[in-house]
């Protein structure tokens, strides 16, 4: 707390200079990095501005790694780590956490399972919260009775979700885009109903290994304190590396079919897309900047302009690439009154085909660059954002200067690179299209 003339602020000034002279690349978001004795990877950003600490552990334990387990195992494992250990029941866990004022948020996606801890940095609260999380992570008991209870709650929530058009659309989309790849998996009420305690114990033992975890620490702590904290949080994890450590490669060429699922909602939910790209992809920057122009830039994007501004066909229309360990989806999404489904879909297709065919204009690229470069400070303006960004860099094995190079990477993208990358990566005649609701006349 003494160092209140923010060191982070000084680094900021350095960063702005970098933005102005991209050649002068040097480390500006100072990530310290090391491995614990047992092999966990640790990333630290010290920031003493506020008396708080954010910590995130990210394991390669997302739903894509569920091979051999029922779909839904990754998510239930992640959420039931906090159900206690042999020595600590669920209520004791909850009460101990509440006493510190700390917050633990579990989260799962296709690639990873994570735990974010936010705590006051005073050693009293911090050490109590860290000790609790360490105990939970090292020996989760997954008690039978709690597994049974939360399995039933999950089944019930999934049955509810299965009445919703957005759920039906997402599942059908994942199926059409990823086929037999693990990224096609969606948990369902039926798959979750078959999960047992042994599945959770087995998945934990295989995937929550110390040499697979990336631990990110941001906030009010020094290096020695962070080293001790890292040992404490990871020493009790199962030893070694998770196996397997590779996912299958995504098959990029898909059949590209149209699927219509009846639903009585007043709006049709429409998803259009294909396999996209992965983290560290050689086409990452052209596709990222290009997508800002196509449908990622809100009101500045072509899709919003054509579908919403010019025609009033939808409240929300967007496109994104979701880069993962392997190729994640490229997706366009919108909702529109069911009677105008065909019209909206035609506008989306024309807009995409034109963009892929012609690429962006120089003016569009200049505007995109201007937003992405000028808006860079907003990506790292607070501890929570830095935590998630740095953790992503660590988890996907990107270079530690990845964030520092964001601006120069954006600035180097050309119109020709965007056109070339979209032509190679988005085959407009082989897109999966899912409509939940109804087409015209339905």
């Amino acid at each position, binding site marked *: 707390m003494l160092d209140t003339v923010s060191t982070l*602020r000084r680094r900021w000034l350095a960063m702005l200079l970098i933005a102005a002279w991209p050649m002068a690349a040097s480390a500006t978001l100072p990530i310290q990095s090391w491995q614990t004795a047992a092999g966990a990877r640790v990333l630290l950003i010290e920031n003493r501005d506020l008396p708080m600490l954010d910590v995130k552990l990210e394991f390669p334990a997302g739903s894509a790694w569920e091979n051999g387990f029922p779909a839904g195992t990754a998510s239930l494992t992640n959420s039931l780590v906090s159900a206690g250990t042999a020595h600590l029941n669920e*209520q004791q866990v909850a009460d101990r956490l509440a006493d510190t004022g700390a917050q633990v948020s579990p989260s799962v996606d296709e690639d990873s399972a994570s735990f974010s801890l936010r705590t*006051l940095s005073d050693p009293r609260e911090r050490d109590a919260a860290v000790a609790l999380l360490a105990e939970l992570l090292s020996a989760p008991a997954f008690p039978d009775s709690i597994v049974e209870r939360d399995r039933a709650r999950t089944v019930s929530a999934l049955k509810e979700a299965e009445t919703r058009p957005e759920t039906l659309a997402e599942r059908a989309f994942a199926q059409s885009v990823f086929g037999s790849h693990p990224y096609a998996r969606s948990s369902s009420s039926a798959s979750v109903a078959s999960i047992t305690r042994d599945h959770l114990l087995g998945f934990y033992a295989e995937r929550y290994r110390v040499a697979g975890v990336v631990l990110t620490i941001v906030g009010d702590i020094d290096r020695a304190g962070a080293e001790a904290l890292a040992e404490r949080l990871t020493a009790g994890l199962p030893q070694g590396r998770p196996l397997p450590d590779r996912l299958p490669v995504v098959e990029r060429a898909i059949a590209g079919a149209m699927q219509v699922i009846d639903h009585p909602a007043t709006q049709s939910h429409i998803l259009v897309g294909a396999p996209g790209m992965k983290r560290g992809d050689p086409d990452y920057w052209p596709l990222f900047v290009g997508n800002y122009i196509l449908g990622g830039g809100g009101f500045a994007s072509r899709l919003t302009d054509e579908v919403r501004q010019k025609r009033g066909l939808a409240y929300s229309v967007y496109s994104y690439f979701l880069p993962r360990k392997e190729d994640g989806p490229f997706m366009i999404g919108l909702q529109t009154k069911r009677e105008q489904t065909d019209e909206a879909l035609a506008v989306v297709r024309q807009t995409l085909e034109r963009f892929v065919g012609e690429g962006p204009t120089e003016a569009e690229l200049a505007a995109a660059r201007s937003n992405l470069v000028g808006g860079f400070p907003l990506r790292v303006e607070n501890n929570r954002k830095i935590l998630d960004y740095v953790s992503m860099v660590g988890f996907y094995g990107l270079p530690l200067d990845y964030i520092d190079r964001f601006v120069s990477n954006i600035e180097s993208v050309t119109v020709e690179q965007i056109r070339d990358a979209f032509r190679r990566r988005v085959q407009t005649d082989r897109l999966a299209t899912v409509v939940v609701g109804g087409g015209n006349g339905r």
Partner: protein
Amino acid sequence: MTLKRLLAVACTLVALLPVAAHASLSAGAVETTLDNGLKVIVKPDRRAPVVISQLWYRVGSIDETNGITGISHVLEHMMFKGTPSVPAGEFSRVVAAAGGKENAFTSRDHTVYHQQLAASQLPLVIRLEADRMRNLILDADEFAKEIQVVMEERRWRIEDQPGSLLYEVLLGTALQAHPYRLPVIGYMDDLRHMTIDDVRDWYRRWYAPNNATLVVVGDVEPEQVFALAREHFGPVPAAALPARKPQAEPEQNGIRRVHMSGIAEQPTVTMAWRAPTLTDPAGDWRPYAIDILAGVLNGYPGARLGTSLVREQRIAADVDAYYDGLGRGPSLFMLGGTPADGVSIVRLEQALRDQVARIQKEGVRPEELARVKSQVIAAMVYARDSISHQAKMIGNLESAGVGYRNDALMLERMRAVTAEQVQEVARELFVDERLTIAILDPLPMPANGAATGAPKGPPPGARH
């Protein structure tokens, strides 16, 4: 509770005390009011070279009447449709080109326009906001398209969401006179019949500097922000604002129960009791005690509702407790949940009632009180990590008429709440005469693409 436990709790609070003193939101904030009535509040936060600017207009659905419901929100959409010097869509393009993120939202009490961007770009957004405060074109053709967008928004947020529709029905039942009964986004039929003249009239009536507050948080010098505000907003004339009538909700003298059918798998129940709104931050005690009460029921991991109904008795799949005593109108205390598979809605309703009856009868334990307060105090520290969160808290306190400078006082008042006060307020609050219950009866997904009228399974309440 063991002595050891007591000490642990006491130590936690002691440790937090100095933190709480630093955590005041308003510490370091300064304000000024321009001659035309615009209030400007600036809170420097120099952790990063960014800024958030929020312009709060004191107009929302609370100011609307039947026939034009949703008009504040429609006007919010139209605010992006151009002035003589900034054509339609240009506002968003300019802010984007400056690296900014921007949006707007409308609530019951206010309409807020916000931009977040590099601190050096603040003059740009101040100039643009001042321009559209008085010079909006409100073109009929733009309106014809945008009202379609708003109807799509209503379909997406409300029409196809049984939970949202149920909430609309609940508010319309619990409140019968006060405009908080009206949906912020408006009824579909009112949207269909809205005209550009309605919107022009609304804009002329409410968009004036003396009906607005500018909140700026970030890496800025307050004096420079004041100067910018004077330069750009200064020339906008003040306007005579319409009289605002209180429209106080009459006494409720009996339980109200309403059912709604919608496509869903599970039924849900929401119980809403009429509750006090904070008006005097120093003198009131009930709103603070009710906040703590909500926290005891559901405010931390291990709180009563989750422990008892979800984890131990397994009556509920999910439960919730909600109270917000800040606002320009009447408040409600809400309890709700989804029954566990095979449990009837009647049984869940009874279990929720049993929980509040227990607090009425037995009160709350000291460690429960301590835990709720720990969450509240820690949350005040965590809130400072986000400039947009800070700006929103300042704006909310201003909008509710409480004053952002009272935030530290409010935290103190919250910390001073006793177990006896929580019990007393529970006895006053949870009375059937002031209760409204809304139940969602699930309809099955139709096989042919059209909803059928018959509820699924036995009548609600008969399932077990």
